[in-house]
């Protein structure tokens, strides 16, 4: 015997959590429910599985599994504000059906047919409005789920999912609702609204006039609903998904960069300038050399090492540096050599240390030769020095001794 509506409604109210969970299972599985899962759920809530079939909440399929009844799934989706994401094509079909019915309504003069067509138009507009609402909210839920990333999907999948939603759902939905497009459904609705507005005042037949009044009000509500949804799509949903997409994209790149960097495979560079000016000969060339030499001499006696420890723990071990230099002689560019020696120890080298080491130039074992026409830049942490190229070699006079 068929259960009464009241019995079914009471069952739904008494077992609300159970129904909510069954709906969740069915929704995630394209509205199919495997037998063993429904059986386990029924056992958990102590509900007879047969009751669900007898109330026509589920349909038993040939293979013994179940399907949630379409009427119930629509009702529950509405009740729980939890809609399935429909393809834009399923919304676009209303564009055609509304246009067709409207054309017929404009052309017919038969009152009863006009009533039927106006009714049909109301029904189509109602469904269209509901579907727009359902899809927008479903998209919003999916975007929020993607943002919170409860399922812990990786960044690459987030980029793909966000891109997929924008490309396949948001953009087509936006196109359907875009009033700039002459073919857009919203423009069609404006025409229906103008027509219904005229008819609700002009038609003689009272019933038909009421029908047009109803149509006019529905179109007004539909327009309002569309505007709300457009605002949600353009102001919230699109920027949110775009942000998720770009953020995930950057983080995908970030992870890849760090991975490659760890493997020593970072071979890219922007190719920025090094901060050096091009080698231009200074007008005060000789003066520069003089200052450098004077500084070198002046710095030497100024090495005061309190308790044997220099500033930032650097002790100038003259003998050690000298030995290295003597081993490497001849050196074509003495100042470059000094710079490289010190930079091995410290990347951001300061002028003070550079001057101290430069004093090796005046050791008696070394003979220096200035290349008057050549000059280059030493880029130190606190100064950019223009220095001459000075080649050094073993002083033959000291060797003879």
């Amino acid at each position, binding site marked *: 015997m068929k259960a009464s509506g009241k019995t079914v409604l009471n069952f739904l109210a008494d077992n609300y959590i159970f129904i909510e969970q069954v709906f969740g299972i069915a929704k995630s599985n394209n509205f199919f429910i495997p037998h063993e899962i429904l059986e386990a759920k029924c056992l958990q809530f102590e509900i007879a599985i047969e009751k669900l079939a007898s109330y026509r909440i589920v349909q038993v399929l040939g293979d013994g599994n179940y399907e949630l009844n379409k009427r119930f799934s629509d009702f529950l989706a509405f009740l729980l504000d939890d809609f399935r994401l429909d393809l834009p094509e399923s919304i676009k079909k209303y564009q055609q059906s509304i246009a067709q019915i409207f054309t017929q309504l404009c052309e017919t003069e038969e009152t009863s047919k006009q009533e039927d067509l106006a009714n049909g138009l109301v029904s189509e507009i109602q469904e269209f409005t509901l579907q727009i609402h359902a899809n927008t909210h479903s998209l919003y839920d999916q975007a929020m789920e993607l943002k919170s990333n409860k399922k812990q999907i990786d960044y690459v999948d987030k980029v793909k999912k966000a891109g997929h939603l924008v490309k396949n759902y948001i953009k087509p939905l936006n196109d359907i609702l875009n009033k700039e497009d002459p073919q857009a459904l919203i423009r069609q609705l404006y025409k229906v609204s103008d027509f219904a507005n005229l008819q609700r005042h002009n038609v003689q037949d009272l019933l038909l006039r009421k029908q047009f009044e109803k149509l006019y009000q529905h179109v007004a509500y539909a327009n309002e609903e569309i505007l709300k949804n457009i605002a949600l799509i353009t102001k919230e949903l699109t920027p949110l998904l775009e942000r998720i997409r770009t953020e995930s994209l950057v*983080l*995908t*790149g970030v992870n890849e960069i*760090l991975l490659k960097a760890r493997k020593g495979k970072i071979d*890219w560079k*922007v190719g*920025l*300038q090094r901060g050096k000016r091009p080698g231009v000969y200074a007008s005060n060339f000789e003066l520069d050399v003089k200052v450098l030499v004077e500084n070198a001499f002046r710095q030497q006696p100024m090495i005061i090492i309190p308790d044997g420890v220099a500033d930032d723990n650097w002790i100038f071990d003259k003998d050690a540096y000298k030995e290295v230099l003597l081993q490497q002689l001849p050196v074509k560019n003495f100042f470059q050599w000094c710079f490289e020696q010190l930079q091995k120890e410290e*990347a*951001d080298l300061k002028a003070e240390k550079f001057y101290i080491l430069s004093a090796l130039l005046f050791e008696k074992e070394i003979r220096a030769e200035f290349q008057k026409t050549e000059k280059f830049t030493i880029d130190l942490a606190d100064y950019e020095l223009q220095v001459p190229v000075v080649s050094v070699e073993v002083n033959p006079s000291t060797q003879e001794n």
Partner: protein
Amino acid sequence: MHYPEYHKQLVNDLLEGKFILWSDHQLFTSLKKNKDFYAEFFQETYGYELIIRNEYAYLTSDDTDEKLSRNFTVFLAIVCYELSQNSENFKEKLEFGEFTTDEILLYLESPTFSELVSELGILENDLNRFLKQLARRNLLQYTDKEQYKFRFTKAIDLFLTLAEVVAHEKMQEMDQTES
């Protein structure tokens, strides 16, 4: 010959590897108004390419062994990673947020990255030196006299775009493997 306004400063700044920022309106506008002249000038004189984006401009060349852009990319990647791990909206923080040197030091010294940071020589015992180098290039701007707090400039978009390019490459690679 009449040279564009701020010519000397523009040439000097760009040759020193600085980013010219849109926020420095006078310099940026002069550069943008005379972009053809400067593109040719740098190409013909130094063989450098002048890149002008909406928010910044810089010189680039294939013939350089600079390491700063590589180090900065890794540095920024670490900051992004750590921010996202802390559930922060990292893009918003990078664009509008203020950082302290201590906060950055914490990220760089995290066990996940300390080895990498040391290998690349980003810290070299002193984060401040690295940050000052970035400030000189207009990649960040200090917001206090003590040079303890700073904000990144719009020039970092160049490096975030690089991350996007790397991501696209990775995704293409994955798609090819799947197919």
